[in-house]
Structures are given as C-alpha cells and as structure tokens.
C-alpha cells in the first residue's frame, strides 16, 4: 500500500477511533450485566459479547498504534478525556432493563456485522484483516439478538409492550451510529469504506424483516431525529461517569503495569 498522505491518514485515524470507541464503551456496558442477567444463560451471553467487543476495541487501537503512530492501546483507552472519544450516544446509555440492552444489542450488532462485512474488502489491509475476523464473531451475536427479539416480541403482553417501547426509544439513538464524518468522500475514494449512508441503508434492509417477524413495528425513520454529536466528541451525560469508573484503578498510576 502506498505511503499514507496526511489527509488520508487523518481520515483513517478518525474512522478507526470511532469504531474502536463504540466497541470499548458498549463492551463496558455489556459487562455490567455480569451477575445480574434475567437468566444465568444471558449473564454468560452478555459477558461473551462484552469480551468480544473489548477484543475488537483492542484490535482497532492496535492498528492505530502500529500503523498510525498513536499511543499504545491501554493509554488510548484509559487516558483520553470525554471530549476526545468518538463513540455514538447509543453505546453510552446505561444498561437499563433487559429490554433496552437487548434492543441496543440487536440494532448495534447488526450494524456492526454489516460494517465489518463491508470492511473485509477494504483497501486498508490491516483493517481488512481485522474485519474478516470480527465479522465471523459478530455473526453469532446477531443470531442471538434475532432469536431473543423474536421470542420476547411475541411472548406475553408485557414482553411485547416492553420490546416495542424499547425499540421506539432506541431507534433515534441507533441512527446516531451512522453520523457522517468529514472524511466520507476520502474514505470512499480510496476504497477504504463505502460510507455511513450506504451502511445505514443496508442496515435498514436487514433489521426491518426481523422487527416484523418479532411482531413489532419499526418507527417511522423519517420522523426521527438521529442522536448525532458523538462522532464530534459531544456526548450524553452518561459517558463521563462511565469513564471515571473505568479508569479508577488505571489512573492511580498510568505509567506502571498492573
């Protein structure tokens, strides 16, 4: 691959950070279910997803470190301040009830699966390699999400009502995943990534049938205001407390091995 021009580099850096930060923060949230799930089996499932997401974040931060001159993954993850993070609002929200967490898992992981499927053919080879590995793992998470959406969407009156309102609440947040970056054209032109808009369209095509199968109603997308801002460093009030907690021990001495 040709030497990276500085604009090109900036585009990739921004792109990697937002993906990695999503993984880090949602991995953190999913891990909060440990010991608290509605069934032991779901405790275990959410922990698996959390571990995979943390692993993905680590892989992406490693690319930043090795190919783009950023600091080591621990430093990147555990010392940046809130404004420096590029995650979307969806991943920042507290775990809430199982209805919220499951719906978030369904909407996010579906987008993630499609994203890494697209990236498996990226011209930026280090990313393409990681993407090929990640998409295989996420396939099972998407399957898990679909099974549960269908089960809970059509079981009892209560579960149906809960899942519908979770979907209504989560949809505008999920649209925030696809907030365009200033580098969309740059990334597309160099065949690194076909773009957030393209991903959003593919995502809508995939989630619609599952939502319908689950007996739920997809909110009218055009009537929703997507929760944008995260990709520019503007976050919900939930992110700072999460970071404070996450870095509590690391901050005691960020220069040593733990």
């Amino acid at each position, binding site marked *: 691959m040709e030497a990276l021009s500085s604009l090109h580099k900036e585009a990739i850096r921004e792109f990697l950070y937002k993906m990695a930060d999503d993984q880090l923060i949602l991995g953190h949230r999913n891990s909060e279910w*440990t010991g608290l799930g*509605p*069934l032991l089996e779901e405790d275990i499932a959410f922990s698996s997803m959390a571990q995979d997401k943390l692993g993905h974040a*680590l892989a992406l931060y490693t690319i930043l470190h090795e190919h783009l001159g950023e600091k080591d993954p621990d430093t990147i993850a*555990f010392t940046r301040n809130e404004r420096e993070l590029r995650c979307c609002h969806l991943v920042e929200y507290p775990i809430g009830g199982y209805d919220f967490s499951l719906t978030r898992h369904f909407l996010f992981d579906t987008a993630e699966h499609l994203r890494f499927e697209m990236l498996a053919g990226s011209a930026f080879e280090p990313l393409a390699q990681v993407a090929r590995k990640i998409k295989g793992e996420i396939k099972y998470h998407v399957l898990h999400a679909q099974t549960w959406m269908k089960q809970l969407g059509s*079981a009892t009156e209560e579960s149906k009502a809960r899942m519908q309102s979770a979907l209504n609440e989560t949809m505008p947040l999920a649209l925030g995943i696809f907030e365009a970056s200033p580098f969309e054209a740059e990334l597309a032109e160099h065949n690194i990534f076909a773009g957030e808009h393209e991903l959003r369209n593919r995502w809508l095509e995939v989630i619609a049938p599952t939502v319908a199968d689950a007996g739920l109603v997809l909110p009218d997308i055009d009537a929703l205001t997507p929760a944008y801002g995260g990709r520019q460093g503007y976050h919900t009030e939930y992110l700072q407390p999460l970071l404070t907690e*996450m870095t509590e021990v690391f901050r*005691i001495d960020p220069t040593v091995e*733990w």
Partner: protein
Amino acid sequence: MYGGGYIYDKSSPAEQHQDDPAKLAEFEAKIDRGEKIEPHDWMPRDYRKQLIRMIEQHAHSEIIGALPEGTWITRAPGFRRKLALMAKVQDEVGHGQLLYNAAETLGKPREEMINDLLSGKSKYSNVFNYPAKTWGDTAVIAWLIDAAAIVNQVTNSKGSYGPYCRALERICQEESFHLKYGHDTVVYLATGTPTQRAMVQEALTRWWPPIMHFFGPPDKVSVHTEKLMRWKVKLASNDDMRQQFLNMYVPKIWELGLTLPDPNLRKNDETGQWEYTEPDWDEFFRVINGEGPCNAERLAVRNAAEENGRWVRRALMKPVGQYTQPLC
C-alpha cells in the same frame, strides 16, 4: 469458588428416615466398590437431601461470588486484566449453571433453589459476605479464594454422586486458570510500586480471617459427619483441607515478601502440621447467620436481578419436563 464445612444438616437421629436395609446395603456396597451413583439409582433419602443441600449451596456460592469481583470488571486497569477478569467471572456464573443443573438431577428445580437463596433458607460461602474494597482485594480473591476452592473442589470431585463429580472436574479445569490469573495479578502488585504493594498487602491482611474461615470450623466442633464420609458426600475433614491449603500457599505468600496477620502461623517441622491462631469462630457464625458486612447487599442485588428479570423468564415459560438431564 466455594467453601464447605458448615453445610451439612444437623438433623436429629429421631428425624432420620429409615431406609430399606437391603437397598441401603446394596447402595453402600456400590460406593465401597468406587462406583458412582447416578440420578436414576436408588439412594437413601438422607443422601439425596444432603447432596441437594451441598450442591445447591455450592451453586449459590458461584453466583453470589460473581458479585464482589463483578463490580471490578468495569474498573479493571487495562485491556489484559479487564478481559481476564470478565472471562473469570463469566466462568463462575457458568459454574453456577452447571451446579444448579447437577442439583436438579436430584429433584429440586432451579427456581426453588433460587427462592431458598433469596429467603435466606439456603446459604452460600461465607467469604462473599465480605467486601472487595480495592483492586488488591480482587487480586487476593482470585488467587487465594480460588486456590482454597480448588482444594475443596478437587476433594469433592472424588465423591460418589456422578453428576456432581463430573461437574466438579470441569469446574476445576477452569479454576486453575483463575488461580493463574489471580497469582499473576498479585505478583504484579507485590513487585510493583510502593502504592501497588501496599494495596495488595492491605487486601491480604483484610482477607486472611475469611480465608481461615473458608474450610469451616475445626473438626473438634464440627457436625458429626461419619455417615457422610462413608457415603462419600464429604471426603476430607475441614482441618485436613485447611492444612493442605496452608501448606501449598503460605510459602508462596511469604516468597512474595507479603506478611500474614498471625504471629503464630508456622509449620511445625516435627508434626508437619501448620500451627495458627484460631480465627474468631463466633464471627464466622454471626456472618453466616446474616450479620456480615455484605449479606444484605448481596441478597438485595440478587433479589433485584430476579425481580427485574421476571418478565423475561415469564416470556420463556414452557412446560417443564419431569427429569433433568445432567449437563455433563
């Protein structure tokens, strides 16, 4: 992880059920021959009762034990520790799942076991009624509580009830990874900066009494367990397991330059036995009976999880089969 020693029912001889002597003789002969008892085999009523009680409390210990360490997953410093701790606590929940299943093969449904946990009728290992105050505590727990649990579980895996033994064999394999992770974390702290060292030393001092309590009261005051020994429900005495643990781990602790808060702790070279100050057994019983620093909190968290998850479980409701297959 898990601790035993106080789990057996003190049923009075008058309450003891009289089993068919011929069947009982056949059952005991089978155990003497080293064969396993399986779910469909005839077994004395008291054997079933004690096993349910023991396995159920072991299962509770796994899921309650996930709580103090679980609260440190979100605070673990760095990717390596965070990933390892997540995997460890996930394993513990998986152990709970395996063990509830093994207990279900004896006829008590999981739901009922959970209800008994929440009502306080059924106990769990006493150590989890103490708080994990710092990152140092999680390191000490993962190393030494898991080490103690391994001593206990390896012993129990030689027992007579097939599904429990097989579950324990699988559990012990995973526990050995926990032990490695815990030891590694303690080593990094003990050989780190003065702050890190102080953190792990304070945690060790805090956890020593609960660790000494782990295997239960001394043999001379324990419930009479001769029959349970004969039936291979209980396989080693509390003191024997405690000795085994001290012998394996005290030297390793001292090697790291860490100290233990018992001036009398030493190995008697003549007897080969460890000598120590008896921990406060009154405190042990107070904590078991609900007065520990975290009993209320642990059950409240578990209760909230049960409450919050009820609608999900209701949505999954399907007719329950008569017989539960062992998972392994």
